[in-house]
Structures are given as structure tokens and as C-alpha cells.
């Protein structure tokens, strides 16, 4: 008590605060409610040819990509560009132009945007590379003949200096993005090859996450993981024996599309005749733990999904390329809090 008398008010204030912290909060922590989140989708908008001024073509959406608030949509023989926020149509890219060279785009399948470039795959055995800002042609890989550089192109993703090109059957060819320049030859040799185990002639969806290339292995009935460090380490040998993936084998589930956002693996899967949109926590997905936080085959009991061949996310909106229903569906992911009480 003697000690207390020597204290002044201004000294006591910190003591009080300290006391508060010491005596107060331990119990509160244990007793605090535990919160969970329920996620559910609602329809936000959709895009079809009515959104493209003057379009008379049937809308045939395949691969999609979002970069710098622009939505790129493969639509049959052309690449459509939309404002990803307002969904306003910005332009239709119908041809590859570089200097005096003009190549009409045909039979497109896939699109990826990375590091200032747009990569567009075509079943006419070519990968077109455009400047993201000017949309001018930079280069084409493959000359359009299927026995040359690629046998068709069914999927593409470019990330961190590598370009992964899914071609016919079980093959993915890996290019170094620096191989492709204004002056590079059309017949580039891949730096590595990957084996997708199964596959034929369908559009493929693939993306890169935390050191892995992940392919929606619709034919292999699994997500196929290729460690990128491993690809680099075994690149030369893979040209003879393509690298096989890590996977968890599903029985009835066919993964169709995969893309990664900040938090989620945004995927589509077909089970029997039903098509599902599934969101997995990204880290768990990367560890091959498939516990979806959202798994739906329609929106609030309406408008069942068709086969979703590509997915993308911007903020809380998910973009789905629903090829069966011939539209891009824009879905909002809503949250409801589930709070466990301590009564």
C-alpha cells in the first residue's frame, strides 16, 4: 500500500490499462462465437451475341480470361473484348495483323493474358500472340499445319514466363515466353513436354497456382498437377518422355475447367449429365484436398448449368463460359454468416 501512495494519477493509468488486459480477456476469447461462412451464387448478368453490336454470328463461347479489367472471350472464330466491370463490348478481334501480314482468325479455343500479351489458341494448329495494349500481332507459333509445331491447340495458359499449350491427345508443350518475339520463327521447339494421361480433341482449361500447373483433366477424371520447378529441372528429359502429373483419381467426376483467383480454385465439373460450378479454397486445392465451399448445378433452383468450358473471377463475380447454353454467365458469390453461440 505504501508504494501506491507514491504513485501519481498519470502513472496509474497505464497500470489500469495493463490490469484490464491481464484480467479481462482470457475468458472472452474462449467464449467468443465461432463463425462460418455459407457461400451461395446468384445470377448477376449474362453475355451472348445480343451484347455484341452488329453481331449476326451464333455465340459460341469457349476459353475466357480476365486481365486489367478486360474480359476476353473466345467466340467461335473471333476474340471478343468486354469491359469486365460494365460488361460493355469493346471490340471484336477477327484477324491477326502484323505489318503487311493478315491472318483471319478461325476455330479458336482458348485465351490467356500475361505480361502484356494475349495468347490465343486455334484448332488450326496455331498459337497467336497479340500485344495486350494495341492488339497488334507479335508472332504466331505454328504455321497452321497440324503436322508442324502443334497438332491443334485446345488450351493455353501463360504465367511467370512460361507458356503451356495443350494440343491434341495427351500432349502439353511448354514454351519459354522469351522464345516468342517480334522476330522469332513460327516453328519454335518446346522447352519441355507434359503428358495429360488421357485426352482427345476437346477444349482444355488450365491455370498456374503457387508453383504448379493445374490442368482440368476431363478425360483423366482428375485435376492434373505439374510442379513447375520439376518441369524446369527435367525439361530436357521431358522432350523424350513427357512428364506425368500428380493426381487424385475421381470416379464419376470430370473436371472441365479450372482457374485460380485470390482465394479460390474456380472450377467446373461434370457428373453424369449434370454440370457443377465448384469453389475450393485455393490452398487446400493445391494440396489436393477437394472440399468445395460451393457446389451448385443451378442458381437458386433455376437455369441449370451446361458444360462450363472456362471460368474466371473478378472481385466477387465469377465468369462462366457455358458452352451448352451459349452464353457467358456472370455469377455473384454471396456470403451469409453462420455464428455458433455459446448459450
Amino acid at each position: 500500500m505504501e508504494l501506491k501512495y507514491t504513485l501519481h494519477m498519470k502513472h496509474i493509468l497505464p497500470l489500469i490499462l495493463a490490469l484490464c488486459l491481464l484480467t479481462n480477456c482470457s475468458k472472452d476469447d474462449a467464449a467468443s462465437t465461432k463463425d462460418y461462412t455459407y457461400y451461395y451464387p446468384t445470377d448477376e448478368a449474362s453475355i451472348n451475341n445480343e451484347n455484341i453490336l452488329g453481331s449476326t454470328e451464333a455465340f459460341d463461347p469457349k476459353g475466357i480470361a480476365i486481365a486489367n479489367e478486360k474480359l476476353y472471350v473466345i467466340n467461335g472464330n473471333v476474340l471478343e473484348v468486354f469491359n469486365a466491370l460494365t460488361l460493355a463490348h469493346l471490340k471484336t478481334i477477327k484477324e491477326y495483323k502484323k505489318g503487311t501480314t493478315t491472318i483471319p482468325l478461325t476455330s479458336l479455343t482458348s485465351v490467356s493474358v500475361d505480361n502484356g500479351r494475349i495468347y490465343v489458341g486455334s484448332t488450326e494448329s496455331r498459337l497467336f500472340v497479340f500485344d495486350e495494349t494495341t492488339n497488334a500481332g507479335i508472332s504466331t507459333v505454328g504455321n497452321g499445319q497440324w503436322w508442324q509445331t502443334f497438332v491443334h491447340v485446345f488450351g493455353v495458359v501463360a504465367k511467370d514466363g512460361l507458356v503451356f499449350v495443350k494440343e491434341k491427345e495427351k500432349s502439353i508443350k511448354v514454351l519459354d515466353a522469351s522464345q516468342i518475339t517480334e522476330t522469332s520463327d513460327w516453328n519454335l521447339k518446346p522447352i519441355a513436354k507434359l503428358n495429360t494421361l488421357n485426352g482427345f480433341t476437346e477444349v482444355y482449361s488450365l491455370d498456374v497456382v503457387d508453383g504448379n500447373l493445374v490442368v482440368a483433366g476431363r478425360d483423366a477424371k482428375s485435376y492434373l498437377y505439374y510442379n513447375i520447378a520439376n518441369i524446369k529441372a527435367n525439361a530436357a528429359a521431358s522432350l523424350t518422355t513427357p512428364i506425368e502429373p500428380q493426381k487424385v483419381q475421381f470416379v464419376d467426376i470430370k473436371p472441365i475447367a479450372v482457374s485460380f483467383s485470390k482465394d479460390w480454385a474456380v472450377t467446373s465439373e461434370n457428373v453424369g449429365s449434370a454440370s457443377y460450378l465448384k469453389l475450393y479454397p485455393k490452398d487446400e486445392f493445391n494440396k489436393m484436398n477437394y472440399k468445395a465451399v460451393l457446389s451448385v448445378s443451378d442458381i437458386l433452383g433455376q437455369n441449370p448449368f451446361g458444360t462450363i468450358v472456362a471460368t474466371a473471377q473478378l472481385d466477387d463475380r465469377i465468369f462462366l463460359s457455358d458452352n451448352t447454353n451459349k452464353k457467358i454467365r456472370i455469377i455473384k458469390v454471396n456470403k451469409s454468416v453462420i455464428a455458433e453461440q455459446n448459450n
Partner: protein
Amino acid sequence: MHIYSFARYLTPKPTYLLMRKNTHFFVFALLASIIFGCSDDGENYTPNYLPTIDASALPAENKPMTMFEDDESPSKMYDKTDRWFRVNEPFQVIQKGKDSVQVSLYSPVGLTDVKVYAKLPNYDKKFLLFSFSKVPAFHRSFHKIPLTEQKNDYLLETGNAVTIDKIEGFSSGAIEFSVESEDPLFKMFKKIKSNHLVQFHDGYHINELGKFLPMNPALAKEAITMIINYSYALSHPLYYSTFTNFDKYKQEQATTAGTAVNGALNWHGNADDVDGVYDYYSKEEIEKIYWNYLDKRTVYMAMVGGDSAWGGGNLASQWESGYVTGHWVGDMSVWSHEYSHHIGFSHSSNLANSGEGGGQQGMLTDFYKYLIYLNDLPFLDPDILKTYTKTAYVKGTYKKPTFKIDPKNPFLVKYKGEGKWN
């Protein structure tokens, strides 16, 4: 939480400025930390659960109705999209649209205190969605899923409360339902291991009138009552052990009769029996066949009018008398025979046919009668439906069925009143 607590402690500030002595202040501070600091919000939470529902007194907005009223148009019972149920789920909850459920009870006797739990993806615990104090026989009604109306408290299976924000609606299958009840009848339903789907099909009598006859809702109620009882009997542990040890059962019959085993020694298949040579099933095959009887396939219940009853594929049928009175006294021989055709057995197999020395028809019938004797079936009293009195809805002339056990019933002889399924 720390931030919250801090704020609390700063609030008494104007008060302590009035304190004169530091000692007082110190004591005050201690008191304050005890009073303000350690209050435990969680323990004080008082959940506000939704009220229980009496399904026998629902407002019109729930569209309450009784299915299979005697005078209901038979087109309803033959509407396979509207009227169907799995025999192990006579209390059926189906999501309708984004925000409602349809609740149906396929039972001639009502239930009390039925709890419908819901399960959401991404949250492992089930919570109580609807609590029905009373559900009448063959009741159907529609209910808005409370989650879609506003933020509510729900009782968890653990006894704690969970508060869930409003959810605008549900994609198909995004909310799963399960049903629990302490009602003794419901507990019997829960024991049924078969998940056969039951429907009525009018194609048979439309295409072959005479060979098949149209049913009506009064008969449909009997058919539903019978198929639940029959499914319970098939699921019974005593039936399972007798079925999977049929060779022993046959040996016991022979021993009782003081003869050699008559005919086949055990279950055998559809191949023709030549000179006492049978295509016997192995122990593993018999086990598998037992579960085939309880699998998820669909049975269309129909009624015949000609010389013989029919079964096969989805069809199983019997005469009107079987539905009106027969099953109440355990005359299940025809039904067992036709149901076995539906499972895939022909007259060459003792699973369908009584054949030489008896088969499943006889064994099941004796067993079923023993269950009636034990009061060990979900429904035992023909007066819950009284179809035998409904002269406007039946063609035959019936009197109240009265059950009597044959003192030589092999199950009675062997088990002597024991074996009730607890």
C-alpha cells in the same frame, strides 16, 4: 475482442477524474476490471428459436392437404412425379424452388414431434429447421425455408444455438434435410433398411384391362401400408439370419417333420432343375441377393384381375383381396412371389417359387405372420384404414380381417415368442 475490451476500459475515464485518492482509484480499477472485464457475453446469449408447427392446423398459405383421400381423383396417385416415396423415408422432405420445402407423410398413421434438420455445405453441423408437434396421416404441406426469410437462431444437434444470416435462396440440392423423431412409429421406419422407391403405374391396366385393374386411393393407402410393413419384415434381423441360413432352416423343417430335406437344400437360381440337381448359390451370392431385395430400385405396385398375378421388372402386383384384407393376416405368399420376380427370379428358383419342399414364399409368409403375432410390424390394426368396410371403393365383399397364428408356425415353434426387433 481485445479491441472491444479496451474500449470498455476507457469509458470510466470521467469517473476516475473525480476520485480523490489514488488508493480508492486503484480499488475502483480492480473492481471495474472484474465487473466490466470478465462479463462473458456468450453465456448470456438467449436464443430465440422458431415456434413448433402443428401440421394438423396449418394456415392456407401452407397448402395443407391429405393425400390419397378416398374420393381423390386416381390420376393423382398415378402421377409418378407427384406421388412417390422411398420405403425407408415415409416422412419425405423435398426442396421446392429456391426457398420452400414440400413435406409429405406416406403413412396411414400420423406422427408426433418430428424434427427436420438441415445441413449446409461448408458447415458440418446439422441444425433444427422445422419442429412439427403433429403430422397427420398422409399429410402434405409446403413451408418456406426460414433461412430465406430472415436472420434466425437455430438449435444445433449439440444443444447449442447457431445464428444464420438470411440466405436469399438455395440451388437445387444445396440444402440437405434429415428427419428425426422419438415417435415409436417413426423409430420403426428408421429401422427399414430397404430404400426401394414406390410408385403406382396406370400403364398396366390401360394397356391390358382385365388382366390388370385400376386402383383407387383407398387401395393405394393399403398398398403403402403393406409395402412399409413388408419392407420392415425384409429388414428384420431375424429374417436376415433365416434368409442367409436357409439351408439350416430347411434342415430344421425336415427334422421337425421327421423326414429328409424335401427338394433343394438351399437357395438356388433360375436354371432349370434337372433330376434334383440345383444351381445353388454360394454364401456370398446369397448375402448379395438379400441386399438386392432392399436396394434402391423402383417398384410399381399394381392390381390384377385375371387368373394370375404378375411381377417382373418394376412391376409387382396382386389381387384386391391381398391389399384389402390379405396382408393384415399375413397372407403374403403372392406378394413375395411377385416381388421376387421383380428382383429377378423365375419359377425355377426357390427364391420366387414355393417349389419342391418350400421356398421364400412360404418362409416369408410364416415369418410375416410371426411378426404380426409379436406385434412387431409398423401397422397391425386393419381399422386404421377400414378399407374392408369401404364398399364404394372395393369390388369384393370383405369382413374385418382377424389374425390367428398357426401353432405349427415354424418361427413360433422355434422362437416361442422371442425375437422381437428392439
